[in-house]
C-alpha cells in the first residue's frame, strides 16, 4: 500500500506536462504521494525519482527540507498549532497546553490509535484571528479551550 497507486502515477504524469521542466512537478508529486498514504514513504520516493529521472537521494533531500512533507506515518488528523509571535501574544501557550492535556501527547507525537498528530508550527498567516490551529487542510481561529473541545468532539 505504500507504493503509488495507478491513479497517483497518472496524476503525476499529467502534472509533469504542465511545467516546461519535469522536475518542477517534484514537490506536487510528493504531495500526491503524501495525500494517498499520509506520509511520503521510501517506496514512493524511489518511484517518484524514477518518474522524474532523478536519483532517490535528490528526492530525499527535497523531502527532508520541507516541513509539510512527512517521512513517518502521521495521525488521521494532523493538528498544527501556531505559537509564533502574534499567536504567542494571544496565549497560544495556553492553547497548546490544552491540546497536550486533552490528547495526552506532546508536540511531534501521534496518539497510539493513530487518530491525532500534534505539531507546534511557525506562523500560519492568520495573525489577526489568533490563536490559530490547522487541522489537516482547515484553519480554526480565535481559539479557546472550549472551542477546541467542541471542534475535537466533532471529529470522527
Amino acid at each position, binding site marked *: 500500500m505504500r507504493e503509488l497507486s495507478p491513479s497517483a502515477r497518472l496524476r503525476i504524469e499529467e502534472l509533469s506536462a*504542465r*511545467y*516546461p*521542466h519535469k*522536475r*518542477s*512537478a*517534484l*514537490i*506536487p508529486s*510528493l*504531495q500526491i504521494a503524501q495525500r494517498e498514504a499520509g506520509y511520503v514513504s521510501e517506496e514512493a520516493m524511489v518511484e517518484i525519482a524514477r518518474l*522524474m529521472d532523478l536519483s532517490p537521494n535528490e528526492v530525499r*533531500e*527535497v523531502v527532508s*527540507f*520541507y*516541513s*509539510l*512533507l512527512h517521512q513517518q506515518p502521521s495521525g488521521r488528523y494532523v493538528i*498544527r498549532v501556531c*505559537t*509564533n*509571535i*502574534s499567536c*504567542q*501574544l*494571544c496565549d497560544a501557550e495556553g492553547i497548546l497546553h490544552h491540546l497536550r492535556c486533552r490528547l495526552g501527547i506532546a508536540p511531534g507525537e501521534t496518539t497510539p490509535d493513530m487518530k491525532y498528530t500534534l505539531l507546534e508550527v*511557525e*506562523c*500560519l*498567516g*492568520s*495573525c*489577526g*484571528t*489568533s490563536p490559530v490551529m*490547522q487541522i489537516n*487542510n*482547515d*484553519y480554526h481561529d480565535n481559539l479557546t479551550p472550549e472551542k477546541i473541545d467542541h471542534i475535537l468532539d466533532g471529529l470522527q
Partner: protein
Amino acid sequence: MDTKILTRNLHVPDLQEIGVYESLGGYRALARALKELSPDEIIETVKKSGLRGRGGAGFPTGLKWGFVPKNSGRPVYLCVNSDESEPGTFKDRLILEQDPHQLIEGTILSAYALGCRLAFLYIRGEYVRPAEIVERAIAQARDRGYLGKNILGSGFDLDIVVHRGAGAYICGEETALLESLEGRRGHPRLKPPFPASVGLYGSPTVINNVETLANIPHIVNNGADWYASIGVPGNAGTRLFGVSGHVVRRGVYELPMGTPLRELLVDHCGGVRPGRRLKAIVPGGSSTPVLTADQVDVRLDFDSIARAGSMLGSAGVIVMDDSTCMVKAALRISRFYAEESCGQCTQCREGTEWLHRILHRIEGGRGRQGDLELLLDLCANMKGRTICPLSDAAAMPIESYVQKFHAEFDAHIREQRCVIRDAPPVAT
C-alpha cells in the same frame, strides 16, 4: 478619508464568482489594455504610478519590469509570490480568498506587459483552501477567454499554473522561490545575476507579490496620475495593514500610505486592550526593528518608517501592550529564524542558533553577565554578509529589542527571572 482600492468590493457577496467580479467592472482594464495599450505603455504607466513592491522591500515595480531584457530569445516568466510567511503578515490571504479575480486580472495585465506566456502562482503549502479558491477562479477566467490561447482575440496567450509550496519560510525570498519551483530545496541564489535576466529555468523572470499585482488593474483603469495622487510623495497608493496582537479590533485595514500609526491603532483598531498601555509596535512583520510607544506618531510609509529606524516591510503590524515580556517575544522570534535558516551561510546558520540559545537562557533565568553584549556582537556579524536577507531579518529585530528595552533584558539577567509577567494592569 475613505480611500480603498483593493478592499472596496470585499463586502459584496460571492465576489469570488467571475460574474460578480465582472459586474463591478472587473476584467474591463484587461479588455481595454489588450485593445488599446502596448506592453511598453503599461510598463511606463506602472513606472509613473510610483507603485512599489508590497512584499517587503518596496522596490519600484515598473523599474523591476524594465530590467527584463527585450528579445532575449528566451521565454519570460512571471511568478506571483503568494508565499506569505513573515510572522504577523496575513494580508495576501485576504485577496486570495476573497477577491481572487482582482489578482488574476492583475497577473494577466502584468504578463502582457512583460511578454510572458506562462505565469506561476507560488502559494504557501498551508494555504490549501486559498489555493482551491484561486484554482477555481483561474478555471472561470479560462472559460471566459481571459486566459488560454488568443485572449479576447488579441493574439496574446497566457496560462497560470498554481504551484503549492511545502512549508519553508525561505521560499518567500525570490530566488529561493525559483529553486523551489524548479523542484529543489529552497536555497537562495547568489545575485547577480538577478532573476530579471537569469531566473526560472535560466530565463528572464519577474517575481511580484500578490498585493502588488492586485493594484495593476486599478492603475490601468484610472491612470498613473490618479494612483500617484494617493498616499505621500515617493510612496504612492494604499497599503493593506494587517494588525495583530494587543489591540481591540485586529484585522486587515487598507489605508493610504503615510497614514499615522496612531490613526491606525486608535481610530481603526480601537487602541490597546482596556486597562493596558501601549508598549511596543513591530511595523512590518517580525523581521523589522521594533518601535517604542513614544514613536506612535510615525507615518506608515516606506521612507518615514525607515527614518524612524525600522522598515514598513510586509505591513504586518504587531502590537504589544505592557503585559508583554520583551525577552520572551525576542526568544520566540529568534526561534523562528533559527528554525527557518536554510543553512547555506555560516553567519546565518550558526548566528540564528546562537541568538536563540542565549535568549533561551536569559528567559529561563540563567542569563550571564555579558550576554547582552554578546547578542549585539552576534547581530552585527550576521548583517550584510550572507547570500540572502534572512540573516539580517533574524538579527535586526533582536538587536532592536535589546537596545530599546535594555533595562528589561538587564533586569532579567540580574534578577534571574521575568520582571514583567506578574505586573498588574494599570488603570487608563
